[in-house]
């Protein structure tokens, strides 16, 4: 039982649960913005699994394995870029659909 309470395992399990929550949000939530947030929760869960792996890999002189930690940093930046692109698309879409209502059929002329 104590083994489960070690951070290297506990946060791994937490990450696993977050993955489930994130997946549920991104798949079932009707709001597109919330789907993006769901993706972020999914990502957070995944990074926690990496963190748990890193923590388990503590060695002499190191509290944790630096490699997964570095991967997480890279991953966070990539995930943020993805969110930013998704949000930009979403905002553009909202603008376009509003415009469409104002001037219908303008967008249908070309291919």
């Amino acid at each position, binding site marked *: 039982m104590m083994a489960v309470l070690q951070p290297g395992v506990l946060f791994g399990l937490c990450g696993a649960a977050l993955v489930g929550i994130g*997946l549920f949000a*991104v*798949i*079932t939530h009707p709001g597109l913005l919330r789907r993006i947030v769901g993706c972020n929760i999914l990502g957070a869960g995944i990074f926690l699994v990496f963190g748990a792996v890193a923590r388990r890999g503590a060695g002499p002189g190191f509290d944790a394995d630096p490699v997964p930690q570095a991967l997480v940093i890279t991953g966070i930046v990539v995930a943020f870029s993805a969110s930013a692109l998704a949000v930009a698309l979403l905002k553009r879409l909202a603008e376009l659909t509003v415009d469409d209502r104002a001037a219908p059929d303008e967008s249908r002329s070309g291919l």
Partner: protein
Amino acid sequence: MSSAGLLLAAALFFPLVLAICCLSARFRARVLAVVVIAPLPALAAAVLVPEGRFAFFPAPFRLTLVLDQPGAILLGGAALLWSAAGAYAASLMARDPAAPRFAIWWLLTLTGSLGLFIVGDVVNFYLLFTLASLAAYGLIVHEQSASAHRAGVIYVGLALLGEAFLLIALVMLSAMHPDANPQIRSVVAELPASPMRDGTLALFIIGFALKMGLVPLHVWLPLAHPAAPTPASAVLSGVVVKAGVIGLIRFLPFEAGAPLWGSVLIGVGLVTAYSGVIVGITQPRAKTVLAYSTMSQMGLLAVLLGVGLDTADPAVTNLTAYYAVHHMLVKGALFLGVGILATTGGRRLRLALLLTAVLALSLGGMPLTSGALAKLATKPLFGYGWLAGAMTLAGAGSTALMLHFLLILRRDTAGNTAGSPALWQLLPWLVVAAAAFLIPWSLYPAVSGETVSGLLHPEALWKVTWPMLLGAVAMLFVHRLPQRLGAIPEGDIIVLAQAAQPVARRFSDRIGGIDAHFRRWPVAGFVLIALAILLGGVLMLQA
């Protein structure tokens, strides 16, 4: 490389090169003039090249050409018909702006159909078969009428299906062979020992039956042949259907025999022969009647091959080729004749009708014509049992069908004003008609092993005459049947397929509905999760 080999290669490549030259617009504008010479190397090869096999190009691209007796007989006849029909087409289409397009399809079909008679390896056989099959589409739809288009669509659909059957059959045939592109001869020799023998044979028969127009895969034939321009009808009905015949000749194991599949071929062939006559006799259009006659004759060829397969008699291939070349030339001449008669009037009309009548009755086996020769040469195969009777009856049926054809021709030409056909249409017709008479006569001794003088024996004459009389009598009765003409629509059972259209549409709509469902975000997401769980679960259970 011997000069014989080069000539044989020229038979294949000359028309192909001409087709490729059409990429140049300047050449394209004049291409009609060369369609008549395109098959000439093949004709020369059929006459001059001795039997043998020739290999070209190094290993991965190796092309093997084979000239044997059945191949040479068919190649010669086909080349002659292609050339004559080409001359006819060149004259007919001189003013047609779409003629270059027609000529390109013509050259491609020609390359494929002639090549099939001489190719000796599996891959190139399939390649040429495909070429002949698909390029014929261009000939069928050339006139762009609604009926031509419908015929073309149905033709391509069935041709693609045939391709699929043939492909899997070829793959099953050569899967175990170490060579990537084996010789047809060697893989067919291994076939009887193959564990997939029956499946392979069944697929071959289906694939080639489709091309020959055997029941129930014949539906495209009575639609496509009449829809094409006259010279194209002549080669389609004369030569292109023979692709199926040469396929069966090449790929069925006549050495070892396969009684089960022999019986199947005999059964299918007889049904085709009779149904061709029965449906054909209800048709009001001359070209459609000819198409049904082609179907009926292909049935007879299938019976011939079936007998050979049943009795393990390799000699049947020669006889089949002989019968096929007779039909090829006669049918070609008849189709051209329909075109000639449409433009002929007055005194010449009677002469032309007479010649047409001789050609037509030749299919029923009129004495001294190629039909009689073909029937006499193949007669020994059937023995004296029920099969011989059935074949005789089929001959009678052919006579009746041809009488029906002649009656239609007389009706159609009754109102013709005096006139004469263009010389360059008349001449090819006469050449083919003459060849239909001469070639079978000259080949008879070699093929049947009997002397020509035996043909003039009264007994032999009677043997072929009485079925004709029977057919004529039958026609007398049939002629009186009310509402006979048009009782069965062109393409007969295709009507059933059209009745199934709503079902197909519903099926397709169902697929569309499922697709729309799967493309909903939550559904796709759930499927994603479910797949991960499934795969993970299975992998975990195993771990």
